[in-house]
């Protein structure tokens, strides 16, 4: 199937995407509890962004073949959010759902940070922060050349970085490069939850004004509510329609979103829930799911 028709085939409505994102969060909580370690905050922060991208109708993937050459590409630069990516790969059908509970265990395909040799749908090993944007920019340039020389359908490259991650200097080498090369098939989500391991990003080493920084590097910047499917969907549509420069979608997010006692707490960056915390988290998420399905709490 060609790229554009794959994009259209994947499209779901906003309500269904919101339900999918809720189920991804549920999976993340269960996976981390079973693993006994991992990073809940950053996965929960990015769940709506990933779900909306994949089911927006603007991102091409083939549920029957994760290696379909006509697919668009997604790079999880904030590789510690691997659990939400794995949950999405299971949602698509690249992994059996029950395999999610093998996260971080000896011999698993679901390594602590994404491994492209092991997990279907993972394009490149990631997790060492600051490297994804360079890789995505190289991919975007490669697809531009394919389109120019071989008449190939222009494939899009999407990446996501955390906000603490933007302190890594390599991002700015890559941002300069992508801007100067006018890579308008490249879209970067900024997951701006303002938390990193040592505290608030604004306290540790502020990246503000992040939108202005990207604009200064030749990017088009769109603001979005990173937990609102309609807002994200509109931003993605604008981003792919934009020509002449790469696009950053600045997503305001809450680390730990969807689990009240994890929200906006940097202590939940890298610890797994206990069994009791897991139950409370799942109860909250299931109640939210009921509301999404029925419009009321169960």
């Amino acid at each position, binding site marked *: 199937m060609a790229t554009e028709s794959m994009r259209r085939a994947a499209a779901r409505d906003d309500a269904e995407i919101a339900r999918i994102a809720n189920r991804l969060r549920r999976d993340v909580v269960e996976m981390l509890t079973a693993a006994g370690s991992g990073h809940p905050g950053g996965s929960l922060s990015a769940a709506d962004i990933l779900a909306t991208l994949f089911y927006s109708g603007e991102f091409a993937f083939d549920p029957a073949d994760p290696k379909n050459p006509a697919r668009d*590409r997604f790079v999880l630069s904030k590789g510690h959010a691997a659990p939400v990516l794995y949950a999405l790969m299971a949602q698509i059908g690249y992994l059996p759902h029950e395999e999610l509970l093998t996260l971080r265990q000896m011999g698993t395909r679901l390594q602590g940070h994404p*491994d*492209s*040799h092991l997990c279907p749908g993972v*394009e*490149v*090993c990631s*997790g*060492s922060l*600051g*490297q994804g*944007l*360079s*890789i*995505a*920019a*190289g*991919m*975007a*340039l*490669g*697809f531009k*050349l*394919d389109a*120019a*020389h071989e008449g190939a359908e222009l494939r899009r*490259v999407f990446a996501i970085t955390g906000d603490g991650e933007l302190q890594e*200097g*390599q991002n700015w*080498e*890559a941002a*300069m*490069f992508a801007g100067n090369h006018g890579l308008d098939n490249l879209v970067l989500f900024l997951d701006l939850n303002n938390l990193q391991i040592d505290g608030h990003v604004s306290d540790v080493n502020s990246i503000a004004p992040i939108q202005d920084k990207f604009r200064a590097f030749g990017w088009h910047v769109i603001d979005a509510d990173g937990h609102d499917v309609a807002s994200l969907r509109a931003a993605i549509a604008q981003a792919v329609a934009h020509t002449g420069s790469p696009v950053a979608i600045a997503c305001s997010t809450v680390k730990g979103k969807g689990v009240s006692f994890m929200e906006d707490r940097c202590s939940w960056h890298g610890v797994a829930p206990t069994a009791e915390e897991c139950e409370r988290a799942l109860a909250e998420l299931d109640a939210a799911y009921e509301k999404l399905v029925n419009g009321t709490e169960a």
Partner: protein
Amino acid sequence: MAKATRAAFGETLVELVEEGFDIMAVDADLCGSTTTGKLGASYPDRLVDVGIAEQNMIGVASGLALTGRTVFTASFAVFGTGRCWEQIRNTVCDSGLDVKVCPTHAGITVGADGATHQALEDIALMRVLPGMRVLVPADFASAKAAIKLAAKTPGPFYVRLGREPLPEFYGDDFTCDVAFANVVREGTDVAIMACGVEVAQAFEAAKILEPEGISAEVVDVMSVKPLDEETIIASAAKCGRVVTVEEHSIYGGMGSAVAELLSEKHPVPVKRLGMTGFGQSGTAAELLAHYGLDAAGIAAGVREALGR
């Protein structure tokens, strides 16, 4: 005619395109020095200059490799392996990408630029990486062969290239394979194992030693990883004593690799000649002589190893 191994780089890239290979090169503001500019002059879309940004150079090369191309990276060896080592480790090697790290200006023969620009740790840095193959060609012809071998063999490679023009050592018909070592001179008393610029120096050292009654074998250990274990062990077994020589730190370089192999599989006394600290400014010839890495210095090292 004397030609630098770096001169083989751009020329070979052009040949690879003409042979039908879908290759690209990514450089970091050194397209003239590394000679990747030759590729860009013939095929502008196949050369990307990221500016002075080696970490991004590796990332962009990785992304291009993920779109189905074989990608060569350049810069100087200090920056092209050191500044971006972790990118090479975690993106290129962990993902097993078709990226060939081929920076130039390795070793003390960089000369006048001095210590900051003389890569003496690059073999060690690359050798330690899982999945990385390491080739150190000795002259222009072997550099061309090494670059072509890297292009034709999937996965990560490091090819160590130098600045200084070197006399022709091999002919144009030189060929090599992965895990290549080559006995370039037969001997019986000591095996001098050398790589890169030191192969020709070791060959001359053997000539100096011959009238003294020392029969030195000379082995070109072009492939530092993987090693040609059979050739190296056979030579060590025959001679019973080994001297290694490289324009690189003795810690972690080719000499270390040979000593590791021999200590496990055929223990013989091994003396390592190379660098133990930073270099300095000077001409390539002056520096090789100063650090005991020219033919006279190697000959002295061999005498010492033999207790003469």
